[in-house]
């Protein structure tokens, strides 16, 4: 057993311990379990939201994307920051409504706003469909980390199983409180490690940042700027806009809004969170440093670049520390996702559609039973799939972004959109995403007559456009008679 593996095992045990301990002193009612009793202050909400930034997606996916694709990785830095601008105006009204109505989940929000349980069920299903790839990518990352740092002793298959078991345990016991406490540890650790690697590796291998980028630019011209085709500037623009709109539409991010104890927390966080994004730069630097030092990783293997370079550079014990931090970046978001997915299924699909009069207690019980089921589904997909981490996330984003139009309209004081409109719009958008993803269709294949720039537009964008058109048309057709007297145009918010 290598020292790296011992250290990673200690980290995992510690995460489990913190997760289990977090429930102390709190009676785990449904509201406690899902939204922490709406009692979290600025720091906790900050960490839950920042949790989105430091998942294995950024740690391994970010460096892997920089390594494999180069410049397109810059998009990760841009979209979150733009999303925080939107959050300043968008989150406070969502929070107010959620508090007044004692909401515990995102579909709950939609079904109350549009007074339609069916819409709630649809939103829940879309949420779960997006969360599964997100969970898969965390488990995939976990597998990579443990398999690499055990120097082959533990296969990535068994690593995925162990990781899934740990997350399942502490989600069942302490719900969102377990995630919040582990976030504190995870963010501190990952911050230190990413800063260190991002500064040390370029200096160690190239003599400095400028030297590194000069060398890469000479060896691979065009790698550091957006290419003319493929992941071009048009791809960047459409992807950044799409993911910025979708950022808060993730069920678990939306849910973390409910945990706040007052609404100014969001406005204050909008100032600090963009700066926090800058840590991503150092993740990119690691990926770029790997480009010329561990060449040859292809396809899904690009996600390995950070660890391959670390193995080559550091002693096993330090690889263990990096791996331990990496395990946390998979476990903490993984637990939030798992928690959310099972709550959606129990509260919004089961109570929303099958048994309207279910009590909080039975919903909570069912949610806990569903935790291992969801975990199992994700493990199955993890062991089969071959997509890269970033590809998986972008697919999830295309799904959740479809909820944006209906959500924004519902915040307007006089919402003219109807539940039928919202339902059909979301359905149309999701259908386009599902079909194009499953059949691997790009804009270019769909519309071969378009100019090159338009061919690179993210396909999720087409889905969103269709969604909005259907949303507006169906809403117009299904206007209730009584509202005929109201002013013709929609009130701007």
């Amino acid at each position, binding site marked *: 057993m290598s020292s790296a593996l011992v250290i990673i095992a200690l980290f995992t045990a510690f995460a489990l311990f913190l997760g289990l301990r977090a429930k102390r002193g709190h009676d785990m009612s449904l509201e406690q379990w899902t939204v922490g009793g709406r009692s979290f202050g600025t720091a906790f909400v900050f960490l839950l939201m920042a949790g989105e930034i430091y998942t294995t997606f950024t740690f391994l996916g970010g460096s892997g994307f920089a390594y494999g694709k180069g410049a397109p990785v810059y998009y990760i830095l841009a979209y979150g*920051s733009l999303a*925080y601008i939107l959050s300043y105006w968008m989150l406070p009204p969502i929070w107010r409504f959620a508090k007044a109505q004692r909401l515990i989940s995102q579909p709950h929000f939609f079904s109350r706003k549009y007074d339609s349980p069916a819409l709630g069920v649809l939103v829940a299903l879309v949420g779960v469909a997006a969360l599964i790839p997100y969970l898969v990518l965390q488990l995939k990352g976990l597998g990579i980390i443990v398999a690499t740092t055990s120097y082959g002793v533990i296969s990535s298959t068994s690593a995925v199983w162990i990781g899934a078991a740990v997350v399942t345990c502490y989600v069942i016991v302490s719900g969102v409180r377990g995630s919040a406490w582990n976030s504190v540890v995870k963010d501190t650790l990952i911050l230190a490690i990413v800063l260190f690697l991002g500064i040390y590796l370029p200096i160690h291998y190239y003599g400095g940042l400028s030297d590194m*980028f000069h060398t890469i630019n000479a060896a691979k011209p065009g790698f550091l*700027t957006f290419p003319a085709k493929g992941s071009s500037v048009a791809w960047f*623009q459409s992807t950044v806009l799409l993911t910025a709109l979708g950022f808060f539409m993730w069920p678990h991010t939306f849910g973390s809004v409910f945990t706040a104890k007052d609404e100014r927390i969001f406005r204050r966080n909008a100032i*600090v969170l963009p*700066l926090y994004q*800058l840590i991503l730069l150092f993740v990119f630097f690691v990926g770029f440093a790997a480009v010329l030092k561990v060449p040859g990783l292809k396809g899904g293997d690009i996600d390995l670049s950070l660890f391959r370079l670390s193995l080559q550079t550091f002693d096993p014990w330090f690889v263990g520390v990096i791996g331990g931090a990496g395990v946390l970046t998979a476990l903490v978001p993984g637990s939030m996702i798992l928690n959310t997915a099972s709550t959606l299924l129990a509260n919004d699909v089961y109570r929303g559609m099958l048994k309207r009069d279910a009590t909080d207690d039975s919903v909570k019980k069912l949610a806990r039973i569903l935790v291992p089921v969801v975990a199992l589904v994700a493990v199955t997909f993890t062991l089969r799939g071959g997509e890269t981490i970033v590809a998986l996330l972008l697919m999830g984003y295309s799904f959740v972004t479809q909820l944006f139009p209906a959500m924004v309209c519902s915040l307007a004081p006089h919402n003219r959109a109807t539940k039928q409109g919202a339902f059909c719009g979301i359905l149309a958008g999701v259908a386009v995403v599902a079909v194009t993803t499953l059949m691997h269709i790009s804009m270019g294949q769909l519309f071969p007559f378009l100019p090159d720039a338009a061919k690179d537009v993210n396909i999720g964008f087409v889905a969103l456009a269709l969604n909005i058109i259907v949303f507006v048309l169906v809403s117009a057709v299904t206007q209730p008679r009584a509202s005929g007297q109201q002013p013709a145009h929609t009130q701007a918010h």
Partner: protein
Amino acid sequence: MFLRILAALPFIGILLGVPFVNRVEPLVLGMPFVLAWIVLWVILISIIMAIVYRFDPTNRQTAVDTEEARS
């Protein structure tokens, strides 16, 4: 209104600006120019949001509310 226009600037800077700065040289702080451009905007977003927070009348309103609720 002014605050919202201010908050719209980063969208313009990042989404519409990038096609014009899509090059490596000159490196800024050791980073390719296009990356440095995005980083600049991320920092500006933070500054802009601080200004918005400072001048947004809603925050003064809520501050009063919170104190009333406490007392």
